[in-house]
């Protein structure tokens, strides 16, 4: 029996992967359906000398991990819809102050308290637009345990590479699902370490002066370089500034460092896309149902394909456009009122050929649900 093979929940996979990525600090507040992540962290982190904090709410949870990140530790929190709503202001702070951290949102049915124990994918737009003001964000997702592992590690890697908070959008259906996972051996997935400044003590260090490659080396709180961190617009020293030139430069930097690298950040899987007549686009738990249908119809000779998105933000516009251009029509499969559908229609050259197959009742969309929509579009009736 291979000891790396485990049969665990998606939430537990996320914990394994975070530890693999070098997580040392977790702060959170219990909320269904993400609670297993906090429970596992409480048990696992102290054993490796890491820290677990149960905070008084989700606001303070995100604040605490942001503080911990500044002392040089990889840090993460996990929550679900209502908690993610509470985190939005602190999320904007981490964006503005360029502090790497990972926020896991195990989505449930919303809005408000909604359906705590049921599946939903309604927070896609919130991940992108939830905090106030213009900004760019990275949000990843995954549909199966092996990919949850990889995307969790990628979330930490992107956070360090781009000095930004990264959101991992899981959902109740995969978070609570148990299936096989083979934990990769250390070193199998590359890890991005914190980029620290090489500026010597006594010489001025500029925490907000990007290198030529756009990356900003950091210095840990507690080390020699002392600098200011603020949520106000700030200069290269981290000092508040309302100089229009500096304000413009910073907002452009915050957006460009992510949007201009959308090709590097794009993660996706193509299933039978090459020769497909009809394309499904999906992500997270919905993609499992879509793939089930694709494999099923392929065995009967139907040319159905699936583009599974793993990076939702920045939205992989070019990849989606190209895939949609090569088929008769596209159906976006998701568990909300069409949040990714909207993006696909914006990306596609012929938005009138993009359709939606969704479910918004807390139940996982089934392959039959998708099949029925396909039949209606094809004029075959249900």
């Amino acid at each position, binding site marked *: 029996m291979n000891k790396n093979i485990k049969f665990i929940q998606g939430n537990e996979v996320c914990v394994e992967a975070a530890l693999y990525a070098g997580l040392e600090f977790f702060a959170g507040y219990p909320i269904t359906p993400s609670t297993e992540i906090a429970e596992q962290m409480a048990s696992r982190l102290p054993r490796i000398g890491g820290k677990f904090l149960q905070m008084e709410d989700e606001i303070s949870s995100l604040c605490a991990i942001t503080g911990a990140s500044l002392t040089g530790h990889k840090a993460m929190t996990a929550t679900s819809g209502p908690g993610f709503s509470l985190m939005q202001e602190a999320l904007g702070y981490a964006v503005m102050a360029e502090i790497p951290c990972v926020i896991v949102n195990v989505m449930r049915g919303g809005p408000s308290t909604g359906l705590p124990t049921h599946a939903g994918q309604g927070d896609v737009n919130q991940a992108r637009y939830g905090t106030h003001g213009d900004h760019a964000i990275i949000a990843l997702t995954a549909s199966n345990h092996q990919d949850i592992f990889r995307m969790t590690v990628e979330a930490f890697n992107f956070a360090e590479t781009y000095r930004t908070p990264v959101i991992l959008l899981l959902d109740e259906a995969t978070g609570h699902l*148990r299936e096989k996972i083979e934990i990769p051996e250390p070193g199998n997935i590359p890890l991005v370490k914190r980029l620290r400044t090489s500026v010597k003590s006594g010489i001025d260090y500029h925490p907000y002066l990007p290198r030529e490659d756009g990356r900003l080396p950091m210095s840990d709180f507690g080390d020699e370089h002392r600098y200011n961190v603020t949520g106000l617009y700030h200069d290269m020293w981290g000092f508040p500034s309302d100089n229009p030139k500096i304000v413009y430069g910073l907002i452009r930097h915050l957006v460009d460092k992510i949007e201009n690298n959308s090709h590097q950040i794009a993660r996706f899987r193509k299933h039978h896309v090459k020769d497909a007549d009809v394309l499904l686009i999906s992500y997270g738990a919905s993609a499992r149902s879509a793939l089930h249908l694709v494999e099923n119809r392929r065995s009967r000779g139907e040319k159905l394909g699936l583009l599974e998105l793993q990076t939702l933000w920045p939205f992989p516009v070019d990849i989606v456009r190209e895939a949609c251009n090569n088929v008769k029509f596209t159906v976006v499969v998701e568990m909300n009122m069409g949040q990714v559908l909207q993006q696909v229609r914006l990306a596609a050259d012929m938005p009138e050929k993009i359709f939606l197959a969704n479910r918004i009742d807390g139940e996982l969309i089934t392959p039959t649900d998708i099949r029925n929509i396909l039949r209606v579009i094809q004029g075959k009736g249900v």
Partner: protein
Amino acid sequence: MEKSRLLFSGSGGQGVITAAILMAEAAVRYESLNAVQTQSYGAEARGGATRSDVIIWDKPIYFPRVTQANVLICLTQTAFNKYQEMIRPGGVLITDSRLVKNSRKVDARRIELPLYEAVMDVIKNPVVLNICMLGAVIAVTELVRIESIKSLIAKRFAEDFLEANFTAVDLGVELVRQHLGK
């Protein structure tokens, strides 16, 4: 092999989810099969109707829920009333003969077993009812080996409870053997 879709149901606190997890995990870790396990539940930690879906196959499994069960297991009347229609025509229905009455004529092979009675007679502790049921399910489906499930139980449960649980597994297997007249 055929894809096996099992639906375990009962009330919160009976341990049906634990039994479902053990079944699926044994298939993955000891029989090199693929398995997925999900559950749906409300706010109740105890009571209510609990359901856990298990799919076992030798190929990749994508859609993880059971829409039509090959094997439906019901440990309460409420669960039976709620899930009886989910059985696939010609599937197997396993119920406890004391806890589920009036199992109306469903189009299935009905296996009514005195699980609860046997557990109270032999082990005198209703806590292991779920494991006795699991022994029965394994005996009926033959998806995992008895020694696999016992190895897994030995890993998962505290040592003090192992004997009762092993006895419960054997009891479940034996009840099926008697039922089938083997």
